[in-house]
């Protein structure tokens, strides 16, 4: 073959390749919009379809949520809800779907930051039509978590109580101490527990989020909801004196090195799961774990400890008196809507009822702020103990790191997580940690 013919072939092939690339890049947006339910409602019977992208998969709650959907379907036979279990990468999937112009009708989102972003982009529909149901069943504190730009866009359907401490009952008995009511009480029983021969604290420091949760609870208990939300939105700088105070309190726990299972070095290499199994082993390697309601599940599945006789829980002790002592930090799933149809409206209103909450609550692994649902619905004493505070909570805050840009609030070894691990390593270094936190926050909020 001559040289020129080869050149021509090369050019032609390149053109074909380019055409395919162009088609691949720009062809993705040509799909039609997803059809949604009909608008007209015959009498009271609403008809239509609702597509729902959810975080719950078959192992994490798809079944109980499907039970909720089935109960709804009985009430509204004309409406079918198609639940799609997307799993943990739901935020990415949603972001892509929203950018591509075909989001699902509804979704549950665990990051208020993501919801805010969608609301700002006008991708979400307000759910103000459900206000009467919501106001009847939820306190203002709860509803505020779903308000963005002054409008109700979402509400917390499923919540986890993060303001808890779990303790090894035999270890407390050996030390002869009772669950503390105040922070100073906590520190003094920790001393007694150490004298009894068991380290008081088990810290899962290999994963930064356990440390930020500890900080968040201390900050919330000391300064209350308003300041917490300001810090969470980076309206207060991390170099603020309130952060100094909270870190000093935190240092009283993390600085008590010989009272932490495995010492500082051990704590930095213990995962969250290990920190739980350490504390509830027999004989115990530690007496207390600071973490959310889901610790109970880990204890039951990975240790031999039994509820009440082996493990129990208490509410994060009071630091300053008043409302701050009763505030609750939660993580959870907020219901959002990307479209507005009668079918969607019916489903949203149904989800806000105590009946809907009770269906899942009965099966465990579920907390709610729906105060018209009775705490008796919860399946066992431990769940009642962990979730009942949510029902009466007036001041509720969302896990701070879920509100922050992920680069700062939720990246392994980086930002807040990495810096709190540094703090665990040298808890006296408050000033330098604050400056580094502020620098990292500034970069992430840019």
């Amino acid at each position, binding site marked *: 073959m001559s040289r020129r013919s080869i050149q021509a072939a090369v050019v032609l092939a390149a053109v074909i390749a380019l055409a395919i690339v162009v088609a691949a890049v720009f062809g993705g947006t040509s799909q039609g919009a997803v059809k949604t339910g009909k608008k007209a409602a015959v009498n009271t019977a609403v008809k239509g379809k609702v597509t729902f992208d959810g975080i719950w998969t078959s192992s994490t709650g798809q079944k109980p949520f499907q039970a909720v959907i089935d109960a709804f379907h009985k009430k509204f036979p004309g409406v079918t809800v198609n639940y799609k279990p997307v799993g943990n990468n739901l935020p990415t999937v949603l972001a892509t779907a929203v950018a591509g112009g075909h989001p699902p009708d509804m979704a549950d989102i665990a990051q208020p930051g993501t919801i805010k972003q969608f609301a700002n982009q006008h991708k979400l529909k307000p759910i103000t039509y459900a206000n009467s149901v919501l106001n009847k069943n939820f306190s203002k504190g709860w509803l505020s978590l779903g308000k963005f730009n002054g409008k109700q866009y979402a509400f917390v359907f499923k919540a986890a109580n993060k303001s808890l401490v779990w303790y090894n009952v035999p270890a407390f008995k050996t030390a002869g101490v009772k669950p503390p009511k105040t922070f100073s009480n906590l520190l003094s029983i920790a001393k007694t527990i150490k004298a009894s021969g068991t380290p008081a604290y088990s810290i899962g420091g290999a994963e930064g989020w356990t440390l930020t949760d500890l900080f968040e609870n201390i900050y919330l208990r000391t300064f209350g909801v308003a300041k917490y939300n300001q810090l969470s939105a980076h309206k207060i700088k991390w170099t603020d004196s309130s952060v100094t105070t909270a870190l000093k309190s935190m240092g009283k726990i993390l600085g008590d090195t010989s009272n932490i299972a495995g010492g500082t*070095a051990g704590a930095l290499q213990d995962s969250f799961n290990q920190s739980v199994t350490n504390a509830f082993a027999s004989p115990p390697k530690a007496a207390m774990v600071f973490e959310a309601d889901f610790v109970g599940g880990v204890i039951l599945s990975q240790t031999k400890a039994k509820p009440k006789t082996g493990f129990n829980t208490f509410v994060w002790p009071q630091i300053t008196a008043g409302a701050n002592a009763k505030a609750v930090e939660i993580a959870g799933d907020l219901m959002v809507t990307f479209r507005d149809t009668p079918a969607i409206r019916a489903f949203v209103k149904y989800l806000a009822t105590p009946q809907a909450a009770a269906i899942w609550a009965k099966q465990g692994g579920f907390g709610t702020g729906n105060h018209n649902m009775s705490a008796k619905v919860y399946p066992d004493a431990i769940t009642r103990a962990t979730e009942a505070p949510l029902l009466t909570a007036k001041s509720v805050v969302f896990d701070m790191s879920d509100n922050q840009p992920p680069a700062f609030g939720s990246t392994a070894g980086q930002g807040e997580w990495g810096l709190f691990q540094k703090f665990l390593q040298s808890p006296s270094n408050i000033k330098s940690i604050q400056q580094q936190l502020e620098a990292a926050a500034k970069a992430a909020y840019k």
Partner: protein
Amino acid sequence: MSAGGITAEPPVAAAPPPGGEPGRFSRYLTAAVFLAPAFIMLGVWMVYPAVYTIIRSFFGPTGFLGSWVGTDNYHTLFTSSYFTTAIKNNAIWVAVVPAFVAAIGLIFAVLTERVRWSLAFKTVVFLPIAISAFATGVTWRILYDQNPDTGAINALGRVVSDAVTPPGVLSSALPSTSTLQPHGGGLLLKTPLHPGGVALLGLTGIAPQDVPGGAKQAVKPDSQSGQINGVVWRDFKPGGGKPGVVEKGELGLPGVSIELHSSSGKVVQTAKTAADGSFAFSNVPAGTYQAGVGASTFAKPFGGYSWLGDRLITPSLLIAYIWIWAGFAMVVIAAGLSSMPRDVLEAARTDGANEWQVFRRVTVPLLAPVLTVVFITMIINVLKVFDIVFALAPESEYRNANVLAFAMWQTAFSGGGNFGVGSAIAVFIFLLVLPVLLLNVRRFRREL
């Protein structure tokens, strides 16, 4: 292909007559059809992503067009300590891994040539490369665990350490009151004693299951003339009790060695405590004394080295990685060895060279091309190392174990969401790999 004899045919673009010679266009078409798959693949999976990444590296974190930041991303790459750690660590990886992998591979290859079961041996050394790097990471993480009950390496350390210095009976114990002061690894009662005195040595921080067997209720001994009596006991009962006071329910600690110091600080007598924790020094001449617990009682058991801590994390990762790749190097070098002309070696031996000289002056120079292949492969591998860091390092040490590819993934995909800086790292890695690649291509050309 020869087209010389068909010039009489008109060069038509349309389909040539059946059976006739293909026209110019259709020859291009044939060539294009054959080349197209390769070009499409190259275009879609190589050229387009590469070009896009380079362009992307000059834009901001998320928005693309309109967020032009110039070289800011590269500036971040070379100033932020997070990335400089990655660059520094990558330099260590490049400096250490290829050399060690090649050296260990060479040693194995040369030695296995001379053993009977060389195939079995080679298979075993080669096995790690058949395991996914992720599984290797998880396995080595357990091996490296600081707790000797979990980590095999530290378990070995404990066997050795405990044989040299056995742990004391009460290694975790602490004094219950400030009258007991640390003294040379042990504890010493500050209060001076005279014959007829009673020493109360209260200890806390002892878990019930750690109390030595056979312990009985502690009893405060009576004063006896010419003797110094005392008791060592677990000065704790539920709720704390009164520190320094022997109470009901508090156990004596048997088997603890007690030392009696004279006023000059010399140990004049020693004693062991009984089941109720009591001890007695008899025939004590008049004078001032101090009683204390010997250091051996508190000797700590081996706690394990922090292999995955901030200081040792990178060396630990390097060891695991070399373990994976040494087998690869061995196999490649062994292949090179087997194709080496034997007569050269024989000639050298005949000329009186010893084995070391043969190895150093003949084998290694002859193996140079193969060693270069190993080196180049390893340098490229190491520049993009990721999985072993991800799987082996605990999250708390990601910062210290950071390497470029890991930083790229974390910055762009895992939470960071900063595609600008992520692309900049990718371009930087590409630039680092480029000279090695060019070298490799040139070598290929020469060999062909």
